[in-house]
């Protein structure tokens, strides 16, 4: 009940800030453009997911941390009221993560609806992209919260860590993986490669997309390994549970931090 009151206030406040509408609009523009230029097929969806894999982690982490700093007054006001800290934490988190996920989902689905892509294209692929985007939104907002709470008094540090983590996970990590392949190409490294891609949530999402559109062949023999592993039931189960772990651990840690914090 109280959590709902907090959520409605925050959603109203976010809408008043208007930037969340702009964020949804970006996805709308991108999806619209991709469908126009690439046709309503897998090509458009692939481009959309590529952009999503870059943008969602960045916005989620940076805004997750920034939002905590911005809501400091709100948090302090509420902490002096009869409300328990877990409720307040979930209220704060849901107040940002749910609108972020919704902005992505709505911005992406609308052009698909009015171009009729939702009927012509493979529904399973569309649902996969939407599902991954929503999970990534929640996941990276949680990570942003974690950084924000860890460096609550030092905003520059919190935002800096968020930015560097994004750079590492979204950009540098792939380079490191490639470097590993290049350096140890003569050895049987399929299994370590599997593990490497498992511990980065963006990679995990990327591989799911690649497999869905059946272009893992482009990734050479590691692609075949991924295909064999992730294509199986066990592979899907392991990948999903890894994503859930990535979603759960930052949230669990930041909730703990929030509960023990001095304000």
């Amino acid at each position: 009940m109280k959590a709902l009151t907090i959520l409605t206030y925050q959603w109203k406040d976010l809408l008043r800030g208007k930037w969340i509408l702009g964020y949804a609009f970006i996805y709308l523009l991108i999806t619209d453009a991709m469908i126009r230029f690439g046709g309503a097929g897998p090509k458009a969806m692939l481009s959309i997911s590529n952009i999503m894999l870059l943008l969602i982690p960045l916005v989620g982490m940076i805004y997750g941390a920034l939002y905590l700093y911005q809501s400091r007054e709100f948090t302090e006001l509420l902490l002096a009221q009869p409300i328990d800290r877990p409720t307040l934490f979930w209220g704060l988190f849901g107040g940002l993560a749910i609108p972020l996920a919704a902005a992505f989902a709505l911005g992406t689905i609308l052009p698909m609806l009015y171009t009729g892509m939702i009927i012509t294209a493979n529904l399973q692929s569309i649902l996969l992209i939407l599902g991954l985007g929503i999970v990534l939104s929640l996941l990276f907002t949680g990570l942003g919260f974690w950084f924000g709470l860890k460096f609550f008094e030092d905003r520059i540090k919190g935002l800096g860590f968020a930015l560097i983590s994004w750079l590492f996970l979204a950009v540098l990590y792939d380079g490191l993986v490639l470097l590993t392949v290049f350096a140890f190409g003569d050895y049987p490294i399929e299994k370590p490669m599997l593990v490497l891609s498992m511990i980065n949530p963006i990679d995990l999402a990327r591989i799911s997309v690649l497999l869905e559109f059946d272009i893992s062949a482009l990734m050479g023999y590691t692609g075949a390994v991924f295909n064999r592993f992730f294509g199986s039931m066990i592979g899907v189960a392991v990948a999903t549970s890894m994503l859930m772990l990535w979603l759960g651990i930052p949230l669990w840690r930041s909730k703990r931090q929030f509960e023990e914090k001095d304000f």
Partner: protein
Amino acid sequence: MIAIKNLKKDFGNQTVLNDMDVTIPAGQATGIVGPNGSGKTTTIKTLLGLVKPTSGEILVNDKSIKGEWDYRRKIGYMPQIARYPENMTIGELFNFIKKMRNSTTNRDKELLEYFDLEKEIDKRMRELSGGMRQKVGAILAMMFDPEILIFDEPTAGLDPKSSVQFKKLVHQEKEKGKTVLLTSHIMSEIEELTDHLIFVVEGNIRYDGPMHELIESKKEQRLEGAVAKMMEETAA
């Protein structure tokens, strides 16, 4: 009644509250005085659960507040620096907190009128002056008619007229039998509003008892002189 038992709080390797042991009597007004950085605000924040103690405990009406939150229903708190969500209007803020507390009180309207703020009800918090924000804080603390009222340097940003108005209000609340806890650096204010005095230096209690006894024992006319003497003694 609020009982503070062996309360200790460290921030890093700095001890702010050092084994504080004190009882704040119910139905009376208690003033907490002490130099800057002596732990007054930390004590209040610990009482509200904003700060978690390193050790020791606080009992409100004989019940430990550890892990509890519903006891805050009985407390009205006016912070030293009133900071509120910038985008909220005064009206929205009050309605929001009313919803949080499941209350339908109309006291906020009365108090807004009392402080001449009823015309500002649709103004956003960031458009308000510091003094106006303080008044909003005072209203927020008193609108739910809680049995415990906590004011942390309440009149620091108020003009003389509002300050007098505020003190009159606190007097009324005291007459109603509320437990009032007040910190201030203005000794005349403490003298005017409170009966019980707690003097803190570096997280240690140096005096805890009726105010008039302190003044008499220091052979002073006013509280200001008595407290100044006490500060000199602790410095020596």
